């Protein structure tokens, strides 16, 4: 158990280092954004006279050397100050905080669904390798892997909400219904179905393919031969020996792809008008609200780091060697 704690601590330190690097990168992106920030701010504030701009420069320390500005910036980030959106006239963090829960629900559910369904389908395909079930899973996975997620989203909503009317096409809840308690939860869940399936489908396809390939590879390894030579039943061999070993690369890839999944929420939230950070990103792009956009960049990066820690813990649980390797 000590090994596990140590592992966890070292991962946290690493995550912190990556976070700092991202903050620094963010700082340089702010500076790369078109136009003099002061001019932009002044323009957004609706006054562009020279004196006001100069005043803004001093106020925000834009006349100081770059490294001082960086230090100020990092200091502010550390205090949770992600800047100010002049378009919305609100601090960036307030805007983000309001949208964060919706995105967390969406991405986390999709991530777990993709992982669970992907591993299940991949396992099924590997067990039935060469049969119609395997072929069907392989073809579906291949198609899902080749389809842009926003298009799947559009087509699913075209089918299930516009044509069939089964599920709501967009939004987080039924506006004006005034549901509370369980009814509200059920309402949100209903709104959640299409976005989650859409977001999960692409990654599920990837994990299914990977699980299948990994299972087939592990099946040929020596220890599986040992298990067969012990006279164990086929199902026991698959669940206890093959699957557990085969799942390790899937977890690794899931961790690496967490970033893509979080990024994909921009598209899904845009399609389904899901009021999360992704939808906010789309609005910020339309309005060229760079402060908000960069805030989103930072917050989503933190989300990915959290997802990575989650997969690390999963990996540590499955593979005893990790805890002892230190």
């Amino acid at each position, binding site marked *: 158990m000590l090994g596990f704690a140590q592992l966890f601590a*070292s991962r946290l330190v690493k995550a912190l280092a990556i976070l700092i690097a991202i903050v620094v990168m963010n700082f340089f992106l702010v500076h790369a954004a078109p136009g003099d920030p002061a001019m932009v701010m002044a323009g957004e504030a609706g006054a562009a006279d020279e004196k006001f701009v100069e005043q803004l420069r001093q106020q925000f320390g834009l006349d100081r050397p770059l490294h001082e500005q960086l230090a100020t910036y990092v200091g502010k980030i550390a205090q949770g100050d992600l800047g100010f959106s002049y378009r919305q006239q609100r601090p960036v963090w307030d805007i983000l905080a309001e949208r964060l829960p919706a995105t967390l629900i969406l991405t986390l559910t999709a991530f777990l669904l993709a992982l669970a369904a992907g591993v299940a389908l991949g396992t099924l395909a590997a067990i039935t390798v060469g049969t119609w079930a395997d072929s069907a899973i392989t073809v579906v996975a291949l198609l899902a892997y080749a389809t842009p997620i926003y298009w799947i989203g559009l087509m699913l909503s075209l089918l299930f909400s516009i044509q069939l009317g089964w599920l709501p096409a967009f939004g987080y809840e039924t506006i004006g219904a005034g549901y509370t308690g369980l009814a509200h939860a059920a309402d949100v869940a209903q709104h959640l179905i299409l976005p989650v399936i859409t977001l999960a489908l692409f990654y599920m396809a990837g994990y299914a393919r990977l699980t299948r390939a990994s299972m087939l590879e592990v099946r040929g390894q020596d*220890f599986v031969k040992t298990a067969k030579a012990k006279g164990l039943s086929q199902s026991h061999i698959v669940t206890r020996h093959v699957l*557990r*070993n085969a799942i390790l690369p899937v977890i690794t890839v899931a961790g690496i792809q967490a970033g893509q999944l979080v990024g994909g929420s921009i598209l899904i939230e845009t399609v389904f008008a899901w009021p999360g950070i992704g939808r906010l990103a789309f609005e910020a792009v339309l309005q060229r609200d760079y402060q908000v956009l960069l805030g989103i960049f930072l917050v989503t990066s933190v989300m990915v780091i959290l997802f990575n820690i989650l997969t690390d813990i999963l990996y540590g649980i499955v*593979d005893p060697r990790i805890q*002892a390797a230190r």
Partner: protein
Amino acid sequence: MTVPLLDVRGLSIALPPGADRPLAVDNLTFTLNANEILCVVGESGSGKSMTAHAMMGLLPHPHVRVSAGSLLFKGRDVLTMPEAEQRSLRGGRIAMVFQEPMTALNPLMRVGRQIGESLRAHTPLPAPARHARVVELLDQVGLPNPAELADAYPFRLSGGQRQRVMIAMALACQPDILIADEPTTALDVTTQKQILDLIRAIQAERHMGMMFITHDFGVVAEIAHRVAVMRHGKLVEYGAAGDVLNRPQHPYTRQLIASVPHYIEHRDDHAKSGAPLLVAEKVRKTFHVGGGLFRKSKPVVAGDDLSLTIHPGETVGLVGESGSGKSTLGRSIVGLIKPDSGRILFEGTDLLSLDAKGFRPYRRRVQMVFQDPYASLNPRHRIGDIIAQGPVAFGEDRNKALKRARELLAMVGLDGSAADRFPHEFSGGQRQRVGIARALAMEPKLLVADEPVSALDVSVQGQVLELLDDIRKRLGLAMLFITHDLRVAAQVCDTIAVMRRGKIVEMGTSRQVFTHPRDAYTRTLLDAIPGKAWHIPDDLQKAPVVGAAS
């Protein structure tokens, strides 16, 4: 007449179309009785493992399948039994131990549990009784702290310990037959001896019938009651151990026995003349494994105060078990590793003090022959180019170098036309000849040969050893011969240095090391040589004439 424990009748195993031959095993017939050890001997591709796999239902179906014959266990054909019944035999009545202990255990499952699985599948024992039995089994195979060890994961165990776990697993349900497929091949020689002793003791105690698959006649001499020799899927000789070992009839058996490396008694001591060619002084090297930003790396001492002298024309054998650091010294001499301290003097110049540019001329004079003939030739280059690349790098005209390559190929016993072909068209032994030609192309004075025959079949081993011996005599080369096999060293070396844990514990002439070892560890090594009590028949003592390319 009683029914034999195992009766194999006319067994044939078909390979998929496109394989190098239609039948992996061809009309094989033999029996195995209770309370005996049958050694099945053969080189790679002889079909010996395939036979064992057929018995255990482990053939990679549907590609490979039994096409004829029967496998009778106590009179009943295993092959026609329903799957459930076969499964209850497997691990219950017939158990198997595999070659590679490092990969044969599930890395994610505690070893006790892996043994317990067998008991769970074949006995009605409740969990606590199973656990007690597991601990008892681990104790029986000589593992320390069995109760603690049962909770360990395989990666904590050494190769020898893992093989003991495998044996405990096989013994779990008191099988009638134990199949051991090269169970000691992947182990160091001292560990091999311990495992062989264990297997023999367990077999005698439980009166099991045992089928022991091996390629090594030394091992056969150590444990066999009866012997079956296989070649290309066919049984070529079958009889009592004493007969086959001492009065082999079939030419192939005779060739295999003649190829067993052994100390040649009438070899003269090498007369050291002139200044030493190479002197290694107090070479030290520590590797740091693991380690990262927040972790301390673990130091592994690979070389600790290594000193060694090689005279012109002398062959020095560097013998040690895995991890003893023997390769470290060889790689330091050819400049693949930079030692932490010490000196390596080649004709008086300290190689370690030279920078890359200064070292370059010495690259020509010291050359290396590598271990794995499958990995040591670039698969995308033609043989001729592979040999010529070195001289060309030193400014020789390419056409001239290619012409020389053909001559060298002839010298190592290959046809000159081999130069235009790619490595995959050649067998392991032939590739090793190419590797030797590549080293010779540089016209070296010292050849470092790092386990040059350990990846080869025994009969090919003999041929390559002879080639090396012949060439170094003809060209007056000095050689540092690195090997884990004392028998091989004894056959080709003038001087032998024995290494253990990064130190040279003994160095002397082959004769002295073999007949009057001074160090206790050397004695342990000598004692561990399988079949040391067996005297190879006199008419086979002299190695066969070098035939055509292997």
